[in-house]
């Protein structure tokens, strides 16, 4: 069941919005170019912009239903909003900023303050003032402030866009921690494919105020046919799995993907961790059968679903345990192997990287 349902039509400034989508638990990315209307939709959910017509419901509560004349104020919607630019109160200490929803907003405290402070690594910042914080620290405080507002949904509006590349790298692990332990839907607005691949469970693509595509990050961003993959880059596959066990050698983990098992080095993982693996098409070779004498350990049984020639190279899309994996081979190899849809094939995966890891059930 969707915990958040949005169906809105309206305009705000130069944007005409006409969007309907749902979001379950986990992270749903609203993905699209700047100016596509993503932030406007987010503000409609928060209640700071009112759509002309529509219905928004979250967690069994109706926020907005223009037919029935319901329009809850932003105050009573119980959302946590993380703004692009942080928007910390400059005249209040970090501690007072974090607890703002409790003393000014009268939100009940159900989460322990210390827990959030520890999650975001804010212990040493509590007495400081926003002016003295770095951009990354500010954004961490902003995320903590939103979480401490006891939200039923967490809305994040490009929380990394105001940061340089290095700071983004610092914040991403915190965002992953928040996403991993969030018991509520998280709506994450972004135009960065990298962030979406790393954080999102579900992607809603917005273009000119409309939903043009929904699906998993792999569907939307990974595939050769995906409209948002960079045109000439080899396609990228994202495979979700679960750490099943450590190998006897102690340095290799076995990741279960459906009924298959992949191996990768990873001393910092724990059995039970959910992982998202990233496999570049250029790191995948194809064979008609398994080869015991190869150094490549990940030899995955697949079925070809699509063969797409791009001049000298050919991209091959394959079904692997219900997920999609890609190989880029020379067109000559494709001809010699007579690759065609429906064919059983073995994908030889040379390199796998971990895109995301979450502790979890």
């Amino acid at each position, binding site marked *: 069941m969707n915990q958040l349902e949005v169906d809105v039509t309206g305009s705000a400034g130069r944007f005409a919005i006409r969007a309907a989508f749902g979001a379950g638990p986990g992270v749903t990315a609203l993905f699209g170019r700047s100016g596509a209307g993503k932030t406007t939709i987010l503000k409609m959910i928060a*209640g700071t912009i009112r759509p002309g017509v529509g219905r928004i419901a979250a967690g069994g509560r109706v926020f907005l239903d223009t037919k029935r004349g319901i329009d809850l104020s932003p*105050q009573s919607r119980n959302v946590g*909003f993380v703004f692009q630019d942080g*928007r910390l109160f400059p*005249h209040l200490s970090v501690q007072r900023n974090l607890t*703002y929803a409790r003393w000014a*907003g009268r939100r009940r405290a159900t989460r322990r303050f210390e827990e959030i402070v520890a999650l975001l690594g804010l212990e040493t910042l509590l007495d400081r*003032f926003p002016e003295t914080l770095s951009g990354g620290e500010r954004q961490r405080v902003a995320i903590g402030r939103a979480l401490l507002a006891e939200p039923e949904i967490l809305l994040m509006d490009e929380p990394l866009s105001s940061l340089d590349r290095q700071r983004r790298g610092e914040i991403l692990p915190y965002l992953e921690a928040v996403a991993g332990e969030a018991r509520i839907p998280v709506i994450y607005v972004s135009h960065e494919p990298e962030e979406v691949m790393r954080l999102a469970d579900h992607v809603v693509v917005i273009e000119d105020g409309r939903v043009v595509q929904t699906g998993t990050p792999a569907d939307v961003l990974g595939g050769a046919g995906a409209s948002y993959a960079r045109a000439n880059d080899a396609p990228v596959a994202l495979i979700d799995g679960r750490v099943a066990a450590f190998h006897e050698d102690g340095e290799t983990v076995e990741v279960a993907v459906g009924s298959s098992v992949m191996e990768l080095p990873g001393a910092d993982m724990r059995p039970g961790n959910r992982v998202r693996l990233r496999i570049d098409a250029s790191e995948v070779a194809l064979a008609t059968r398994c080869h015991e004498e190869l150094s490549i350990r990940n030899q995955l049984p697949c079925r070809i679903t699509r063969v797409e020639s791009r001049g000298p190279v050919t991209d091959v899309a394959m079904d692997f345990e219900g997920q999609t994996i890609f190989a880029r081979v020379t067109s000559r190899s494709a001809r010699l192997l007579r690759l065609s849809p429906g064919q059983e094939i073995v994908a030889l995966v040379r390199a796998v990287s971990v895109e995301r890891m979450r502790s979890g059930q």
Partner: protein
Amino acid sequence: MSEVETSIILLSAKVALTAILFALPVAFLAAWLLARREFPGKSLLQALVTLPLVLPPVVTGYGLLVLFGSRGPIGRVLDAAFGFSFAFRWTGAALAAGLMAFPLLVRPIRLSLEAVDRGLEEASATLGASRLMIFATVTLPLSLPGVMAGATLGFAKALGEFGATITFVSNIPGETQTLSLAIYSLLQTPAGDAAALRLILASVLIALAAVLASEWVARRLKGRASP
């Protein structure tokens, strides 16, 4: 300094402080309306607020006399309803001083309200704060430097007000004779020079103290943001 001179200084301080105390909330409301609201007659309000600054003070004082004098339409109602009168009393001096200081109060407050980031108020709303709480915890504290600047400027103006005061409530020693009025009277008196000079020095010191105090408060307010 003689007892009379001390009482003149105390009366002036009482008049100016009372004037600012009552004018400040009204000025804040006017500044807020001008900074935040669009309504018909906004330019009229803007003009009315500026009027005491551009009118000859004597004209403003005469206007007060006509409206708030014992036979004026407002003066009569106040007298009948509450037995309260502005006419020829120190409260009248305070009214004149407050009115003359009003434009000086409104302008800095309006500017600082316009400078408050509306995004912070939006953030406050998503954190559950009611409109009143948003005002009390975000808008007001962030506009405080402007309020302080306005209050200081207004206090200095109220302290030195002359034209409107003498026209409205006359120059009655012990009741409406504030610093400026007393200095004026002393300068008309053959042997008044020495006393006038002492009062002139006192008014310079009071004005200086007010400005220094306001600077100090402004620094403290700013210091909170960067300890």
